[in-house]
């Protein structure tokens, strides 16, 4: 059903304005102060271009770092529930990379399986993704090793790919994508023979099937300690990861009004599994590192039929101590 059109780069500002006046909140990567992050923008001016990867993924749009779950009021011994969080604003996320768009499948698998997480679903439903395929990559990228590619359409509503003449080929992939185009139909032209620029050459670095086969048997192996000796146990890898979904729940109050908040959490932090009694099922960092790899590359494929990693390379780029996930995985696959 994919329809192909083109849009000039110079028309993007018009598109942003049309979306904005059509009631959409537009999030796009903005560079500054040493970071490129998705922020709400009014126009295309100032939107970053040429980034290989944003510092943080656009996960904040679907699974905010801090989100209201419910609201209540207490009066002496009674509690009343108050009107919950407002419906999320219709949002367009512009400029995700295809790997990030693919990560939405992981979020969907976690949040919509068995128990339907309405908070997540409302945001997912309200979000339209305009991704841009990659024409460049760096040594941290490995999307092709985990089933993706620089031009993968999974998860995108519209995928833009650079063509000659300062324009993008727009693949309109879903009904949501069509609805966006309908908000500014004049800015899109027929694709007729548009030739896309070559995409980034991301080499396949390991055999995913081999890794999935190998992991269950290597639980007790020495590799986890060896690899994680230098791990300092922060949560950076999880928080920059587009596919990490674990969260914490915190109550906060102000006089007699209260809120239950959900916020990101990380299996890399010791307190994540710590019991009140002091017992900790994952007491040392090597166990937590193992959990990270096992969860993404063994448990999730097994239980949710989805790989919990999209190969964006953010964790490796951001890691303070060079815990390069690609290198570590290669070492695991190659270990005898």
């Amino acid at each position: 059903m994919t329809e192909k059109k083109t849009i000039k780069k110079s028309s993007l500002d018009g598109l942003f304005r049309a979306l904005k006046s059509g009631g959409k909140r537009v999030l796009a990567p903005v560079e500054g102060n040493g970071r490129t992050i998705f922020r709400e923008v009014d126009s295309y001016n100032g939107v970053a271009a040429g980034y290989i990867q944003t510092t943080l993924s656009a996960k904040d749009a679907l699974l905010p770092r801090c989100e209201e779950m419910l609201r209540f009021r207490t009066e002496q011994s009674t509690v009343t529930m108050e009107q919950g969080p407002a419906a999320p604003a219709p949002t367009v996320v512009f400029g995700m990379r295809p790997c990030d768009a693919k990560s939405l499948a992981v979020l969907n698998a976690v949040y919509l399986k068995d128990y339907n997480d309405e908070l997540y679903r409302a945001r997912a439903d309200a979000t339209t993704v305009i991704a841009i395929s990659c024409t460049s990559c760096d040594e941290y990228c490995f999307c092709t090793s985990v089933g993706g590619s620089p031009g993968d359409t999974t998860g995108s509503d519209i995928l833009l790919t650079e063509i000659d003449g300062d324009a993008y080929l727009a693949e309109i992939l879903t009904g949501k994508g069509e609805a966006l185009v309908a908000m500014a139909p004049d800015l899109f032209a027929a694709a007729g023979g548009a030739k896309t620029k070559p995409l980034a050459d991301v080499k396949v670095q390991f055999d995913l099937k081999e890794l999935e086969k190998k992991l269950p048997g290597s639980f007790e192996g020495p590799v986890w300690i060896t690899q994680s000796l230098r791990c300092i146990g922060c949560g950076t890898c999880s928080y920059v990861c587009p596919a990490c979904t674990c969260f914490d729940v915190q109550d906060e109050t102000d006089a007699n009004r209260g809120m239950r908040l959900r916020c990101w959490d990380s299996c890399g932090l010791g307190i994540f599994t710590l019991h009140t009694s002091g017992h900790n099922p994952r007491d040392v960092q090597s166990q937590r590192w193992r959990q990270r790899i096992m969860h993404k590359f063994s448990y999730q494929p097994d239980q949710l039929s989805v790989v919990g990693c999209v190969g964006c390379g953010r964790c490796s780029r951001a890691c303070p101590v060079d815990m390069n996930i690609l290198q570590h995985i290669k070492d695991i696959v190659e270990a005898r």
Partner: protein
Amino acid sequence: MEEKNVYQPYLMRIAAAIQETPDVKTFRLEFINEEDRKNFNFRAGQFGEYSVFGEGESTFCIASSPTREGYIECTFRKMGRVTKALASREVGDTLGFRGPYGNTFPIDQWKGKSLLFVTGGIALPPLRCVIWNALDTRENFKDITIVYGARSVQDLVYKHELEEWEKRGDVKLITTVDPGGETPEWKGQVGFVPTVLEKAAPSSADTIALLCGPPIMIKLTMPILTKLGFSAENIFTTLENRMKCGIGKCGRCNVGKYFVCKDGPVFTFAQVNQLPPEY
């Protein structure tokens, strides 16, 4: 048009409170909303998330039996932020409850069998649910044996019910306290649960064992049960990992490919033995 928020708790009123030990309390909770009460049902072994609004949620099993309708009971030890707040609540106060969550003990499949409960300290509550369920449908089971130990006489929970079980002719109850934990009036055994169990030597023939207690007790009791002839498939337990959501999303209770909240908390030891040791 708006679907229910899965994290929205039922509002419950504390209908009764019992101070079991100096730091363990039992609450009986009733639904404030009649509609909720009507639609609610659960099965033995399931758990829930109990809210003290403003402090947070805490995870405990439902300690009452599904045969007793209209309310649920929970028993907890005062330990962290939420349980301390819970302990300060009184009859008439409002709490929240989400659940029931998790799998159940397959009680229906145990018809015609004997049941052996082996448990220690604050681990009796998850089994109490099964005990009452079995006692309320007593005709379905052969022998029912309960071996229950605590650090001291003071630390035994459900003291009144222990007396009641003692008096019933259809339950064999063996209570024990750790050496040094006895009082002059204490009539039960003195010694650790595994030792007492070995001495009592209940038959494993056609019997399901339910074992629940602190890790060290489990570790020392398993060999005894094996010696008594129980196979790992016939020994059930309920695991307890840290949880926040209770529905397989927050990621805390992940052990191997399972979530204790969603795929458990009830496991046989045959299953537990297959799990990575992260519980």
